[in-house]
């Protein structure tokens, strides 16, 4: 909206810039602060005496002899077994993304090419499923999973996350497939391709932007999930987010807060880098559903 006619007064420009700067501070400072604090000892970052210790590193100097310490990281990753949690997260994320995309592209392609009425109702049903709070689904899973003795293991969680993710993936890919002209696969069908061949060799090659976007969202869901992973995995198989929660401690056992701080930074950094790299896709994914109606 940069109009030649639209002259902004200087006051408005200043106000606008100030507003953006304040907002960015609110949005980003908590992360910068946590990153900074993760290199201090607990007595500094959670100081009872003086909050300025977090900057002057008073106790960090006494305890470790330096301004910064990476003790929290090395302890959390070894003693706290965060390496195991991140390994589990990688396994879960890779499988969830692959399976979601495989099921999602097939289903969304069919939905986008069907003219029947049931395709519409399936999309509405998917919207309703999307609205279900995950915790209500988990309360439905727990009992049958205990009975079938498939509780606590990674494959169960992967399948559950794929299913929970399907409604959103279907909607997203559906709107992407709609933008691919029908004539493309119709001509392939006339030339004697089967539907699957048309899908595999004609449509998929032009669908990469959509697939990458859908993949990113599946990844963020699997990577960020707390409800499902915390309740469906046993201690041994916990992924990063429930692991962070376990560092916080409960009434029964003392946690290790600095482990949690360093684990939060370790878990967030890869996500930020990924989004920085794929920013365009994330934004297009969020807006396809909305702007096109």
């Amino acid at each position, binding site marked *: 909206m940069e109009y030649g006619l639209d002259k902004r007064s200087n006051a408005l420009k200043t106000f606008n810039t100030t507003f953006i700067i304040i907002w960015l501070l609110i949005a980003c400072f908590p*992360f910068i602060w946590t990153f900074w604090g993760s290199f201090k000892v607990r007595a500094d970052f959670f100081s009872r005496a003086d909050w300025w210790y977090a900057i002057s590193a008073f106790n960090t100097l006494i305890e470790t002899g330096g301004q910064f310490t990476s003790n929290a990281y090395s302890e959390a990753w070894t003693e706290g077994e965060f390496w195991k949690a991140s390994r589990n997260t990688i396994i879960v994320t890779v499988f969830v993304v692959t399976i979601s995309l495989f099921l999602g592209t097939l*289903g969304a392609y069919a939905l986008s090419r069907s003219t029947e009425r049931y395709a*519409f109702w399936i999309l509405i049903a998917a919207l309703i*499923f999307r609205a279900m709070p995950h915790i*209500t689904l988990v*309360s439905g899973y727990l009992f049958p999973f205990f009975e079938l003795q498939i509780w606590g293991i990674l494959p169960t969680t992967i399948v559950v996350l794929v299913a929970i993710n399907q409604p959103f993936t279907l909607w997203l890919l559906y709107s992407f497939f709609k933008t691919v002209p029908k004539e493309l696969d119709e001509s392939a069908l006339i030339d004697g391709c089967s*539907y699957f061949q048309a899908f595999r060799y004609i449509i998929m090659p032009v669908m990469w932007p959509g697939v990458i976007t859908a993949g990113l969202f599946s990844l963020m869901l699997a990577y960020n999930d707390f*409800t499902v992973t915390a309740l469906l995995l046993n201690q041994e198989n916990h992924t990063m987010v429930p692991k962070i929660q376990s560092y916080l401690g409960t009434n029964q056992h003392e946690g290790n807060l600095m482990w949690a701080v360093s684990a939060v930074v370790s878990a967030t950094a890869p996500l930020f880098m990924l989004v920085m790299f794929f920013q365009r896709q994330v934004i297009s994914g*969020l807006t396809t559903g909305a*702007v096109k109606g």
Partner: protein
Amino acid sequence: MPNKTFFWFFLPTGLAMILFIGLPIISTGIQSFYAQHDQVVKEVKKCDPFGCTVSIVVDQEATSVIRDERPLGKFNGLGTYVDRNHLAIEQISEFWDETDTFGDFIDQVTNLPFYKALLFTLTYCLFVTPNVLLLGFIIALSLNAISRKIRGPLIFGTILPMIVTPLVGSLVLFWMIDAEGIIGANLQLIMEDPYLSLKSSRTLTWITIIIYGVWHHSPFAFVVFYAALQTVPQEPVEAAIIDGASRYQRIRHIVLPHIYPVVTFVALISLMDNFRVFEPIIGFSAEGSAQSLSWLIYDNLVNEEVILFGSAAATSMMTIIGIAILLAPVLIRTWKEFRTAR
């Protein structure tokens, strides 16, 4: 596409959704009619030189036999729904008789666990959703006026609160706001109240969680509004400028009507997401003063002694009904549109 081909293409995803979204809802429904078994007790006669005493102890063996035989629990009908931890029909009618003023009655009712959680969940939705829309729209307008060259990094900074998981987002804020954190400590200095802390006040906790909610969800509203702003046609805006419309009038009468469908979309999505608020309560360790419906279910499911399947399921069913009520207007509208389109 022929029905048969459609079937095979859709089978995998359809199966996944039916098995892991459809069936669990049914399973939750069935579980909500059952309650965990009572413990079997037996009388043990103990005799010593001074006489015999009879004491009552839990018969662990018999209890576990019953549990193994019927793991679902005993049939309880709608019992779980109306008990003290859920709709609490009995308690409410008692309060109605006992209390003198309506205010007292409301106070009593909102102290019951289910209504307490419902009150928090609704308050959260009511305050977060409009503020998310407003803040998201202002950020979008504001960023839209900034030079295109530096917009990329600014957008990245703006969407950070949205891409982290709610648990991490709330922890990061909590560590700053808590009495030992940078903001909390400074607030104590400014207010000159060394005992001021998040945990000590219910109102403060609620406000903090609501602020967190706005912080976390605004970027989503921003992204969608920002994209919608790019599609606003230029001609009417230019015409309005020539006709002497003020900036506010232009936004009110040209931009807003244009992006109106998107506003309803964002409102719906954020309402759905806010209704399931749960992780911030854990992140802020706010269980004491703020409980949501989802948190109640979680609490039943992580119960130390026996998992309260029935109780969790009953709360789940009522949450689903809540979601259905929220979604109903949208579904009815879609259905009407669909019918007229035919």
